[in-house]
């Protein structure tokens, strides 16, 4: 813990800002709904698109609901869904990459060709097709977002794993007669965990943007549930008057993704791979 604290202190300013934003949004996702001043769906203001006031810190939305309460609950959906999807994408992609690295060219070739094919479908387009085919319940959205970003993680993890598989210490392990599973899990995986964590952060950012984008289009999280993207969508009629109800959730998404990006950049891993 002391080590982590010292590392945080050694970060450049941008990294500290990023770290603070990430911790802030994690805390909001965990505890935010408990702090909400009003119930999420309650109509509490007489006016729609109120400006900020002592009663409603972020004003009211298009139906006169409290924006702050809805934002606190929406953040939990956005952060929770994206974190789960990013975790699923990273573990699946990495597991497949390790299989390819220790499985020889018979496994590696077809798997890599297949992933190359998937990666040449733009991610937003791919997820739109998936949503059209399967629908967009919360569970399906999680799977769709994860599936969309597996190929990107696979590509990076495979490049790392194939390099490590050629190293002397892995050859020694092989000569010792260790099984493929042991080589993948105990020899290769521990040495690629650092770049993989950075890649996890990037996947998380991509998935937050993808899911908010889908919700913004009305194809993501469905009412009565609402993530931050849904909040932007439902208040779009307030755009003409510059309502806080539309700015607040959009800025919330941006601070979350920018925070993760700043943190990854400061830790010093140059993210390579397909952009969003």
């Amino acid at each position: 813990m002391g080590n982590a604290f010292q590392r945080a202190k050694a970060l450049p300013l941008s990294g500290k800002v990023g770290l603070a934003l990430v911790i802030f949004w994690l805390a909001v996702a965990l505890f935010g709904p408990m702090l909400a001043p009003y119930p999420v769906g309650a109509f509490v203001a007489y006016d729609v698109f109120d400006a900020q006031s002592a009663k409603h810190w972020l004003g009211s939305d298009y139906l006169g609901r409290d924006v702050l309460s809805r934002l606190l609950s929406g953040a939990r959906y956005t952060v929770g869904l994206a974190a789960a999807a990013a975790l699923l994408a990273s573990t699946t992609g990495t597991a497949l990459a390790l299989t390819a690295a220790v499985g020889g060219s018979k496994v590696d070739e077809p798997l890599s060709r297949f992933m190359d094919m998937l990666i040449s479908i733009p991610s937003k387009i791919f997820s739109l097709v998936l949503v059209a085919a399967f629908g967009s319940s919360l569970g399906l959205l999680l799977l769709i977002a994860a599936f969309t970003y597996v190929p990107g993680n696979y590509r990076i993890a495979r490049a790392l794993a194939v390099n490590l598989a050629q190293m002397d210490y892995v050859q020694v392990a092989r000569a010792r007669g260790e099984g493929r599973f042991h080589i993948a899990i105990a020899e290769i995986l521990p040495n690629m965990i650092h770049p993989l964590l950075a890649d996890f952060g990037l996947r998380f950012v991509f998935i937050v943007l993808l899911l908010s984008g889908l919700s913004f289009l009305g194809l993501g999280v469905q009412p009565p549930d609402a993530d931050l993207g849904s909040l932007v969508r439902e208040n779009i009629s307030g755009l003409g008057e510059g309502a806080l109800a539309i700015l607040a959730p959009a800025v919330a998404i941006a601070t979350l993704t920018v925070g993760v990006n700043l943190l990854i950049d400061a830790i010093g891993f140059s993210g390579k791979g397909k952009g969003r």
Partner: protein
Amino acid sequence: MAGASTRSGMSAALTLIGKRFASSLLTLLLVSMTIFVIAQLLPGDAAQEALGQSATPEQVAALRHEMGLDRPAHVRYVSWLAGMVSGDPGQSLVANMPVSEVIAERLPNSLLLAALSALVALPVALAIGIGSAMNRGGRIDRALNIVTLSMVAVPEFLVATIAVLIFSVKLRWLPSIAMASSDMGWGDYLRGVAMPILTLSVIVIAQMARMTRAAVIDQMDRPYVEMAVLKGVAPVRIVLRHIMPNAIAPIVNAMALSLSYLLGGAVIVETIFNYPGLASLMVNAVTSRDMPLLQACAMIFCAAYLILMLIADVTAILANPRLRAQ
């Protein structure tokens, strides 16, 4: 191949380009299979969807037969693919007219939007990328790094919202809804699409500038640049005469990757500004589950992506002096 004589250099390059072209075609074919399979997996089918819950099984069966849905999947795939290739991807279920006509109406709008955004984004991104590379580690570079790093992570609708607030709510310069129709003059058209272009450009510029900077810096660390520095060549000349010719391939690659982002970003931007382009058409197709239209749109986007990647790779091949030498 590196040992090829200069005379066969060009033909070696042509062989490489041919191979690269063939592999793009193969990928496109596999992509079409993937999209077809996913689109056919939906619970229920288009006939049931079109007739609604109250239809009798006989009616559904009759419509299924009429739409050709009772044929085996591979037969349907081949006939769909043949239709795509010959420019007739079927009938749009919702618009009740040929998909090709619906798309023909929207595609030029999207291409124009993409072209104008690229036109705005390319010079700015190159200037920022090269500028910050030359200032590597300096204040300007670090500031630009933070700015572009943040911009790539900002959702399109925030950029769009802020643009609307500034330019149409506060300053009242531009309309908040994109107008585009054939009977408009160029001036009106440009005013109408200024904000979609602005929104798309902002994010593309950030991405492209970052990749350009990386490409230039990668070259700066090479011995030949150190040599030029030691000779006392002026910095601007080093970048333009020494580095740029060698960085062309990665920079074109960066451009292609960023421009391919225009395809996805357009989905949000066209919708928020109500721009009648292909991406908003595709979103409508998803909402109404108009599968023939959706499949055709998806294929166009994938083909566009593959073409951009092909251009990037062909440029890399042609920019390699070992292959280009005549």
